């Protein structure tokens, strides 16, 4: 070691030592500076203070420098964790909306109005469109029984047809029907519309049963016994119709008419009445359930309902052909009627005509064309026949096909007279009170026989034959015989009153009496039953006869003398007895006492 070094060691010993230590420290530090873990460890506790410090000192600078990074970070985060953010935000949004509605209701309404308004109007217009289509359909199919029946119903009910149309077109359809065992909630049967199949009907049935039990139990606790009737959701309804051991749950789309309710009730009634015991004793064994029948019954409910909605398009010919057929039949019947009437009138007129009566003339009418047929002795009579019938109404044309036979006149002169007499006799005998016959001698002497009721009838008959010029003389040998009166008036036991049912017989009697001679005497013969004493019976029979007498005199103004007597039973006519119902009666006879 040289001197200089020694001196340096002496003088700078401390400094050199410090320098050495310093050098070591720097090396140590520089080594540390390359270790990131150490740096992070050192700086981390200070970071918060650094940010705080710098924000306090110059906030703007810090924001400027940090914000681009932060925004970038948010963007990146949003893209990567969209699902997570949605989940986190969802509850907040609902809360925010609720809060906003609470505080700023009007603003929310205004903001949503354009969207909701459009949505609602779109829905409403679509529904209306469907309804209009349905109505149009009904109107286009104007020639159907349903339309005619609707028109009649509208008239009867006094409502407009449009109103009925609207109610018919209220869109509703049964989507599915479940028959559910009440306690277990097991589906006994179910039917659904092909377009709306239901998944897991068993689950729906069980859930419905649970809901039903819950509601019914809750309601029973609070109020009187009631059942859950309907569950509504959206535009659909579940109608619950319960019986003792089962219930029907019917899913209906659209409005439910009382008709639909009625049908549901009827279906359940049918099911319960025919399978009540099976349902009651259901133990889980589905083989005991008459599934086919139940299925049929439920299906009819669905198809019935849906069939009603479909207006069947029927070809107009289906209606027109029967209508034409009926019109044709009616026309034929009417024509026949008209033809018959014309023919009848014409024949009447021909018979009534004095000159034509004796000829066998007749008419044929076909489609109001009248044809005269028969034989007459002269052209004048043929023309007369035609003239007689010209005034008949509705006749289109008259064809006169009457044949004129010249020799008729001479040959049938005698027949002509007989015909005339025969005709008169026939006409006179129509009267009940006249029953006459005749004989005609070769020298044209007419003898009248037979009988009439009264003298004036005899005169009348004679007068009729006097008009026939061909007769040389007339012998009137007609006898006057008053009619036998068959009238029997019955009385009630122990009563002298004329029964209502007997009165018509008395009126008939009065009518007959008006046609016989006033000079005759009417005998009223009364009979009584043997139930009372002779005295009582006598009294009551007399009273009955007097009542009848009074009735005939006062109400019938009968001019004949009336005598009253009691029946002598020993003289009873057996034949009369047979026609008599019982002993309480009065009979009548006419006698000519003046003779």
């Amino acid at each position, binding site marked *: 070691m040289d001197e200089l070094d020694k001196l340096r060691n002496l003088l700078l010993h401390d400094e050199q030592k410090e320098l050495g230590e310093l050098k070591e420290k720097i090396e140590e530090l520089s080594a540390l500076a390359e270790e990131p873990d150490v740096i992070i460890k050192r700086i981390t506790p200070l970071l918060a203070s650094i940010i705080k410090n710098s924000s306090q000192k110059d906030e703007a600078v810090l924001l400027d420098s940090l914000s681009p990074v932060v925004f970038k970070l948010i963007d990146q985060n949003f893209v990567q964790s969209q699902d997570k953010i949605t989940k986190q935000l969802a509850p907040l949004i609902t809360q925010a909306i609720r809060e906003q509605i609470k505080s700023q209701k009007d603003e929310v309404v205004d903001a949503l109005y354009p969207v909701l308004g459009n949505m609602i109007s779109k829905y409403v217009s679509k529904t209306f469109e469907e309804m209009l289509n349905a109505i149009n359909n009904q109107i286009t199919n104007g020639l159907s029984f349903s339309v005619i029946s609707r028109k009649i119903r509208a008239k009867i009910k006094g409502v407009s047809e449009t109103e009925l149309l609207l109610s018919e077109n209220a869109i509703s359809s049964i989507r599915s029907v479940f028959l559910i065992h009440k306690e277990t909630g097991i589906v006994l049967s179910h039917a659904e519309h092909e377009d709306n199949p239901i998944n897991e009907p068993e689950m729906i049935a069980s859930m419905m049963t649970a809901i039903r039990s819950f509601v019914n139990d809750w309601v029973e606790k609070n109020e009187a016994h009631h059942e859950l009737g309907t569950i509504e959701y959206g535009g659909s309804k579940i109608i619950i119709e319960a019986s003792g051991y089962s219930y029907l749950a019917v899913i209906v789309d659209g409005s439910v008419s009382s008709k639909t309710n009625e049908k549901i009730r009827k279906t359940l009634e049918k099911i319960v009445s025919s399978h009540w015991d099976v349902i009651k004793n259901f133990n889980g*064994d589905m083989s005991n359930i008459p599934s086919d029948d139940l299925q049929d019954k439920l299906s009819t409910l669905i198809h019935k309902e849906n069939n009603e909605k479909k207006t069947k398009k029927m070809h107009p010919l289906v209606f027109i052909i029967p209508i034409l057929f009926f019109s044709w039949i009616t026309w034929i019947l009417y024509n026949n009627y008209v033809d018959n009437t014309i023919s009848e009138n014409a024949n009447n007129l021909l018979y009534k005509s004095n000159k034509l009566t004796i000829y066998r003339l007749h008419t044929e009418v076909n489609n109001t064309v009248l044809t005269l047929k028969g034989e007459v002795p002269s052209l004048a009579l043929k023309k007369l026949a035609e003239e007689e019938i010209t005034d008949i109404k509705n006749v289109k044309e008259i064809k006169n096909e009457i044949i004129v036979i010249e020799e008729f006149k001479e040959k049938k002169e005698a027949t002509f007279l007989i015909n005339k007499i025969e005709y008169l006799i026939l006409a006179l005998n129509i009267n009940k009170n006249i029953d006459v016959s005749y004989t005609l001698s070769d020298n044209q002497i007419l003898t009248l026989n037979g009988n009439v009721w009264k003298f004036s009838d005899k005169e009348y008959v004679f007068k009729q034959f006097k008009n026939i010029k061909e007769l040389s003389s007339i012998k009137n040998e007609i006898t006057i015989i008053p009619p036998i009166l068959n009238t029997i008036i019955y009385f009630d036991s122990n009563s002298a009153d004329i029964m209502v049912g007997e009165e018509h017989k008395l009126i008939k009697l009065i009518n007959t009496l008006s046609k016989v001679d006033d000079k005759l005497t009417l005998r009223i013969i009364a009979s009584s039953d043997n139930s009372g004493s002779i005295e009582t019976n006598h009294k009551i029979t007399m009273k009955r006869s007097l009542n009848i007498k009074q009735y005939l005199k006062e109400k019938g103004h009968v001019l004949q003398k009336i005598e009253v007597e009691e029946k002598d039973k020993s003289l009873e006519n057996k034949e009369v007895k047979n026609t008599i119902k019982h002993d309480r009666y009065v009979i009548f006879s006419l006698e000519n006492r003046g003779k």
Partner: protein
Amino acid sequence: MFAYKVVLVGDFGTGKSSLVRRFVDNTFSEDYISSIGVSISRKQLSNDVSDTTMMLWDIEGKTDFKPIFKQYLLGAKAFIIVADLTREKTLESIKEHIQLCQESVPDLPICIALNKADIKSVNYNANELKKLSSNIIKVYTTSAKSGDTVNEMFAALNNVVIERTV
């Protein structure tokens, strides 16, 4: 073909819903979701006698504040009473549940499921539990988590129900 209703009864949190889920879907979840009201599941079964649709009514568990809703028990063909092997109180409730079931529908087959057998259990005496009612078919220790004896229990119950009905 048979169709009937089985109701699971028990205190809350005993694993009724888990047993149903294991039986019906063969799944299990550790999350506890308290049942509200009733949850209904369907399982198709078959044995030598018949095919069966079993409707499982998993009803809300009994708590101190809320009794079991009796209406849900009506119309059942069998009951499963579920208890939690980790909570002694749920085992004590079994007697009460049996009584409730028998009041609702008398003389029905009852299975007792002592659930959560996969976790360390409290002490119990299966024989004594069996003696609680003559309607008890068997006392099962089940685990909805591992699936132990779950299917076995439901199958046995189904056999008994079918046997009694036929």
